[in-house]
C-alpha cells in the first residue's frame, strides 16, 4: 500500500466518524457567518460614515469584513481540529498506536490528517462563500479562489499545530495557543479593521504573521481586487509555512510514537 493510499485510510476513518454529524457541522458553519455578518457587518457597519469607509478602500464595511472572517474561520477550525482531536489520537484514545500496528506509517497519518483538515475547511469555506453570496458580497467568479486559499490557510496552521501537539504531554499548552496565538491573530490580521490604523511597528509585525496573508488573499479574491504584486508573496508565505509545518509534524510525531 502506498503512502497516498494509506493516507486515504486515515482520512476515511475521520469520515466514518464525521458522516454521522456532517449536517450539524455544516449548519453551524452556515449560522456562524450569518450571525457575525448581521451583528458586525450590518450592525456596526451602519454606524460608519462614507468618510470613514474610505479607510476600507471605499467598500461597505460588511463587504470588507466578510472575507476577513472567512480567513479567520479557516485558522480557528484548523487550530481546533489539530489540537484536542490529535492529542486524543496520540494519548487518550491511542488511535495512532493502533494504526501504527498496521502498514499505515507516520507519514500517512500526517498526510491523512492534513487531507482531512483540507476537506473540513474546504466544505466550511464553500458554505461560508454561499453566505457571502446571499449577503450580496461576492462580485465575480474570482471569489471561488477563496476556497483553495482557505484550505491553504487551514493546512498551514494544521501542520504547525500537529507538530506542536506531538510535543505536548497534556492539554495545558492548548489554552495558551488559543489565548496568545489564535486570538491576537484573529484581532490584528486586518480581519476587522485595516492594518493602516496601527502604528508602523505593529504593521510590520502583522506582515510577519500568517493569518494576515490569508486575509489579504481571500479578500482580494472575493472583492475581485487581487494585487498581482503582493498576491504571490502572500501565497508563498503560506506554502512555506505549510511545508515547514509538515516536516516538523512528521518528525515530532515520529519521536513521540516510535521511541
Amino acid at each position, binding site marked *: 500500500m502506498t503512502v497516498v493510499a494509506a493516507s486515504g485510510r486515515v482520512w*476515511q476513518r475521520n469520515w*466514518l466518524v464525521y458522516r454521522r454529524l456532517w449536517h450539524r457541522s455544516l449548519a453551524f458553519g452556515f449560522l456562524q457567518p450569518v450571525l457575525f455578518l448581521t451583528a458586525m457587518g450590518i450592525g456596526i457597519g451602519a454606524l460608519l460614515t462614507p468618510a470613514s469607509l474610505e479607510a476600507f478602500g471605499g467598500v461597505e464595511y460588511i463587504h470588507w469584513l466578510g472575507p476577513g472572517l472567512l480567513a479567520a474561520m479557516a485558522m480557528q477550525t484548523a487550530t481546533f481540529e489539530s489540537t484536542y482531536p490529535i492529542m486524543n489520537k496520540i494519548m487518550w*484514545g491511542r488511535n495512532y498506536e493502533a494504526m501504527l500496528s498496521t502498514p499505515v506509517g507516520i507519514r500517512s497519518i500526517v498526510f491523512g490528517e492534513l487531507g482531512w483538515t483540507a476537506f473540513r475547511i474546504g466544505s466550511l469555506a464553500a458554505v461560508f462563500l454561499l453566505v457571502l453570496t446571499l449577503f450580496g458580497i461576492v462580485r465575480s467568479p474570482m471569489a471561488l479562489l477563496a476556497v483553495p486559499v482557505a484550505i491553504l490557510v487551514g493546512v498551514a496552521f494544521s501542520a504547525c499545530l500537529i507538530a506542536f501537539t506531538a510535543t505536548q504531554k497534556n492539554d495545558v499548552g492548548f489554552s495558551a495557543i488559543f489565548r496568545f496565538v489564535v486570538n491576537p491573530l484573529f484581532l490584528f490580521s486586518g480581519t476587522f479593521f485595516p492594518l493602516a490604523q496601527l502604528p508602523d511597528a505593529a504593521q510590520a509585525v502583522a506582515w510577519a504573521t500568517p493569518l494576515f496573508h490569508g486575509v489579504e488573499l481571500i479578500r482580494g479574491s472575493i472583492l475581485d481586487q487581487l494585487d498581482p504584486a503582493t498576491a504571490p508573496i502572500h501565497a508563498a508565505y503560506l506554502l512555506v509555512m505549510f511545508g515547514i509545518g509538515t516536516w516538523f509534524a512528521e518528525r515530532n510525531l515520529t519521536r513521540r510514537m516510535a521511541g
Partner: protein
Amino acid sequence: MTTPETSTSLVHARGLTKRYANGFTAVDGVDFDVRPGKAFGFLGPNGAGKTSTMRMIACSSPVTEGTLSVIGMDPRTQARQIKSKLGVVPQIDNLDTELTVRENLEMYARYFDIPRDVANRRTDELLEFVQLDERAKDQVEPLSGGMKRRLTIARALINEPELVILDEPTTGLDPQARHLLWERLYQLKRRGATLIITTHYMDEAEQLCDHLVVMDKAKIVAEGSPRQLIDQHSTKEVLELRFDDGVRDSLNGQLDGLADRIEELPDRLLLYTADGERTLEQVNLRKIPIESALVRRSSMEDVFLRLTGRSLVE
C-alpha cells in the same frame, strides 16, 4: 542472512538490546527463537523488559543493538511488510471509541488494504469467534473489559496474521473473563497460529505457553517449557507453612534438613521437597507448632522466586 535458526523460527533474536534516549536499558542483549505454531511466553514482573521486547518485534520501537528477524524480515528496513503479517494486542486497549464494534474491525481491515468483501466476511467470522456478533452495532465504550479485549483480539486477527503478539492479554480482567479469553486463545492456537504472549501471571503462562522465557531486569534468566522450568528450577512439591506470631522467630533452625531449600516469605515459609506430605509428617514429628500447612505442586511462581529471589506479582 539465513542460518538454520532463522529458517525455522518466526522470530529470531540475538543480542537484542533496547536503550531509550534517556539512557535506560530496557532490554539487555537477549537471545530467543519463536517457533511456528507454538505459543511463546515472556514471563516476568512489571519493568522486566517484556513490553519493550514486544514493541521491537512489532516494529513500533527501533532496535538499539543486536539481530532481530521477524517472519524472515528485518524490522529496520521492512517494517511495513512485517506489520502486514502481524496481529498486535496491546497492553492498554486502543479500540476506536468513536466507531461501533463492527466498524472497528472494518476500518482496521482498511488499514491493511484488505478488499471490502473479504473484510466483511472476516468481520462476520471474527465477531462470531469472539462471541460479540450480537454487539456488532453497539458503540465500544459500554462494553465490559473482557469484551473490549476480545474485540481487540478479533481486530488483531483481521489480516489473518502469521504471528499474533499479545501484551498482557488478561491483565485487569475478572476470573470469568480471563477463562473465556484463554479458551479463545487456545482455540486460536489449535488452528495453528503462532502466539507471543507476555504476562506476569504464572497461571496464564502455564495455561497458554508451550515455551517460556523468564525475564528479569532486562535479561532472560531461564528458558524452557513450563514443565521443564519447574523440573529444573524447583522441586516436585512445595510445603507452605504458616506460624503464629513469635513462633517463627524462635524456630532457630528447627526446620533444617527437612527440605531441599527453604524460602522465607513475609507471611509464610516455603519448603521445597519431593514429597510434601512426608516433609509435613517430619515437621510434626519435631513438634514444631504450625498454624496451618498446605502441600501443593511447584508452579512457575516458585521458579520465578528461585531465579530472582522475588515474587512475580508484588
